[in-house]
């Protein structure tokens, strides 16, 4: 069973407007799948529906073979889908390491009484969570910043911290919403390499939304393109690059990293 | 239940309901514009009651002038409260604004206690409002008719202001989306001041009528009506003027009804509002006439 996420015919409506319309999406273990489309295409809405933040109006979502449609978001998260947010949602006033440790809350086995009186599994669990958080911070090169306030971090580090936090959930599937937005080309390249290592070492599935086309083309195994909520293409980066419908949807935009001036064609 | 008894209760319920409604409109307008529960709103009722009382009893001013003066004073106080206490913290978290609002409410109540004292004063009723009409076995106080008529007139005025005037449209726009309004060049603070003035004036009018119905004027008299008016606003759908009036009526009728059905429950009258609110929040959090607001 390699199939992690299987979204079938997913639709989401807001007051009559279909933000997502009959979306199919599959993500397998060890695979990075891109979800791209022009602004307002419904990409983030699709992520929100998969992670249970909003209720889909129709369609079904399967994760590891079980249907999770309509589950509350904490339950979906505990089942192994972690995410990051387009507009970074850190626990701003808490320290970097606390941000990561919080994501391990669902893995603790001690009760609040054990926490108060310090017996039972409390100490063992706490040191496990702490060392795991330290490990993840090291992985993301944030170890030195462990005791800084999350909001005091530079933008790029905040994005990294969000990923560290998501990984602390020990997910099977990681959904990244514009992870390289605001990074410079060098950082983006580094991050691409990191993502590929993550996929291979942890063998998790990754879903990815981004507007940086060269980045998406480089790291993704498969890409789903949507426009105005409607899926218009599905395939490998090579197939997508040469798809007429995709080119039409992106008319006039900087597609594929090269300056393409469609207007003069 | 006797037919005329039921009608009699209906008259009582409508009267109280109108008063809740008047207060609720002010609550709902301020909440719509600022997303702030103006805890001090109920206390404005007390301020206007004292102003009216002092005008008539102490300064011997004719009642129409006293009442008008009380309403204007209360409206000005509403603007002052906004400028002094709420404006400086518009950008900070909601919890801070809420705490400030509670502080303002306590300040008004205890200033009342310090300046005027805690002993209830009896509010004078001008002759126009006294007397009653007997319809069959149903006794309709003139005051009830006045309250109903004045409430309907004020509600109509509010609706016209909110729907037809420029400033009313700006108010509605503000309650939808602050940022866009600022971009459009509307003077936000003027609109907010106007909202406070209008809401406070309604509370003042309600306060004066409240005092004629329940003639004891004291510093904490606004607390319970204020809370209930907020509940009425929630019932009707917060931010919706007609809904607030409707919520007030429903609450007034429910309170009277519960006592009419089972006189032993009269002690629970003040709890009715909160049970209603919990039910509505659990079943239809946006209220009867409220629309879904994006978060």
């Amino acid at each position: 069973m390699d199939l992690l996420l299987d979204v079938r015919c997913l639709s989401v409506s807001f007051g009559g407007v279909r933000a997502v319309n009959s979306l199919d999406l599959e993500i397998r273990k060890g695979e990075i799948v891109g979800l791209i489309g022009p602004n307002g295409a419904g990409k983030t809405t699709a992520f929100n529906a998969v992670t249970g933040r909003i209720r889909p109006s129709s369609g079904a979502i399967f994760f590891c073979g079980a249907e999770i449609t309509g589950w509350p978001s904490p339950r979906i998260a505990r089942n192994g889908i972690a995410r990051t947010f387009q507009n970074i949602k850190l626990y701003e006033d808490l320290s970097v390491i606390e941000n990561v440790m919080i994501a391990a809350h669902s893995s603790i086995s001690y009760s609040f009484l054990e926490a108060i009186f310090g017996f039972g599994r409390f100490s063992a669990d706490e040191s496990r969570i702490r060392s795991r958080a330290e490990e993840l911070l090291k992985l993301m090169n944030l170890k030195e910043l462990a005791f800084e306030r999350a909001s005091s971090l530079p933008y790029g580090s905040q994005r990294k911290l969000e990923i560290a936090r998501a990984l602390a959930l020990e997910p099977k599937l990681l959904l990244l919403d514009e992870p390289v937005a605001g990074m410079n080309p060098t950082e983006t390249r580094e991050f691409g390499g990191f993502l590929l290592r993550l996929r291979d070492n942890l063998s998790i599935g990754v879903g990815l939304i981004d507007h940086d086309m060269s980045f998406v083309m480089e790291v993704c195994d498969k890409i789903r393109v949507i426009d105005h909520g409607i899926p218009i293409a599905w395939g490998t980066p090579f197939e997508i690059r040469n798809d007429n419908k995709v080119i039409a949807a992106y008319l006039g935009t900087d597609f594929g990293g090269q300056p393409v001036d469609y207007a003069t064609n | 239940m006797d037919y005329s008894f039921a009608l009699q209760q209906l008259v009582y319920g409508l009267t109280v309901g109108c008063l809740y409604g008047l207060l609720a409109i002010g609550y709902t307008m301020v909440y719509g514009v600022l997303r702030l529960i103006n805890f001090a709103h109920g206390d404005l009722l007390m301020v206007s009651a004292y102003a009216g009382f002092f005008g008539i009893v102490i300064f011997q001013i004719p009642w129409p002038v006293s009442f008008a003066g009380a309403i204007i004073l209360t409206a000005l106080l509403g603007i002052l409260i906004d400028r002094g206490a709420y404006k400086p913290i518009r950008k900070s978290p909601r919890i801070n604004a809420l705490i400030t609002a509670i502080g303002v409410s306590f300040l008004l109540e205890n200033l009342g206690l310090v300046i005027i004292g805690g002993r209830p004063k009896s509010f004078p009723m001008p002759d126009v409002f006294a007397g009653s009409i007997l319809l069959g076995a149903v006794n309709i106080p003139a005051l009830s008719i006045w309250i109903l008529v004045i409430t309907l007139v004020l509600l109509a005025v509010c609706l016209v202001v909110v729907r037809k005037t420029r400033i009313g449209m700006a108010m509605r726009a503000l309650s939808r989306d602050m940022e866009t309004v600022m971009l459009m060049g509307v003077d936000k603070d003027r609109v907010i001041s106007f909202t406070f003035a209008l809401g406070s004036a309604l509370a003042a009018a309600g306060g004066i009528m409240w005092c004629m119905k329940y003639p004891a004027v004291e510093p904490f008299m606004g607390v319970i009506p204020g809370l209930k008016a907020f509940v009425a606003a929630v019932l009707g759908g917060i931010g919706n003027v007609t809904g607030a009036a409707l919520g007030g009526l429903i609450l007034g009728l429910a309170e009277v009804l519960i006592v009419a059905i089972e006189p032993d429950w009269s002690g629970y009258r003040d709890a009715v509002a909160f049970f209603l609110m919990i039910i509505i929040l659990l079943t239809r959090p946006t209220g009867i006439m409220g629309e879904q607001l994006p978060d």
Partner: protein
Amino acid sequence: MNKTKVSRDKSLTIFSVLLLLAFIFYAERNFNHYTIRILENIAIFITLAVSYNLINGIMGQFSLAPNAFLAIGAYTSAIFTLSPEEKLRSFIIEPMIWPLSVLSLPFAVSLLLAGLVTALVAFFMAAPVFRVRGDYLAIVTLGFGEVIQVLANNLISLTNGSLGLKGLHPYTNLWWAWGVCIFTIFCTVRLINSSYGRAMKAVREDEIAAEAMGINAFRVKTLAFTFSAFFQGVAGGLLAHLITTISPSLFTFMFTFNLLIIIVIGGLGSTTGSVIAAILITWGGEALRVFEEPSNFLGFNYKGVPGMRMVLFSLILILVMLFARSGIMGRAEFSWESLFRWFRRKLPC
């Protein structure tokens, strides 16, 4: 932090608690009745403020329910400690319901029951209360306080209605008050420093992100609400047996307002701040009593104005909100390490 520092801090904490106990021992023998009463009040208010701060400060949910919890705790413990004879004597409108009418339990048991009953009520309240957020939560919890007062007035065979319960034995002394206070601080701090506390802070900082990380916000809120209600219930029991007469009008919103001032001045979210502000406000409130009582100052006859203290307190609250929002401590907490660092800065040697 290394092991030696942990054990150093632990011994310092135990030492300070012993020091506090020694002070209580001394105070009990040497201080006058009035001062002892203030010290007892301080302990009860610390208990209340620390547990209230858990909801409003640590978890960021704006509850206005403490007066309700205090009332439930006070009534529960009073009902269990009153002697059957006293119950028979004071329930003149309606007799008290059996078996409560013949029951009389030790103070400690009644305190525990006060906490448990209050926690149970809070647990069942959590479901409707936490369906709503922010301002609505404030009004629902405020309404809950009003409902509890209405119930206290009307469930006459349980509460004796507006006459209240009289003749409680004054069990509460310095030891009880401070014992409960220290225990509350201990439990609350331990909870905050565990994964449960971090989850509460996560809910405060960003509920959506907390839920996306697998935290069931509703469960966390229910836990905090119930936990906090337990200690407020116990504090209610202490208060009842300190003033020995309770009635529904005692547990108005005024109580919640005082606690709100304390946690705001201390700094929302700081347990240390709550403790400091509870001491300041309780003491200060006593000191300010002179404004409300008649006095003769340098030949001037001052009549005393009731309400003056609340005017001052409301002004302080508004001014703190406008100009010093983070209060005394912000969200910072006391630690021995920071104390040492402070000393080192002050006394460079």
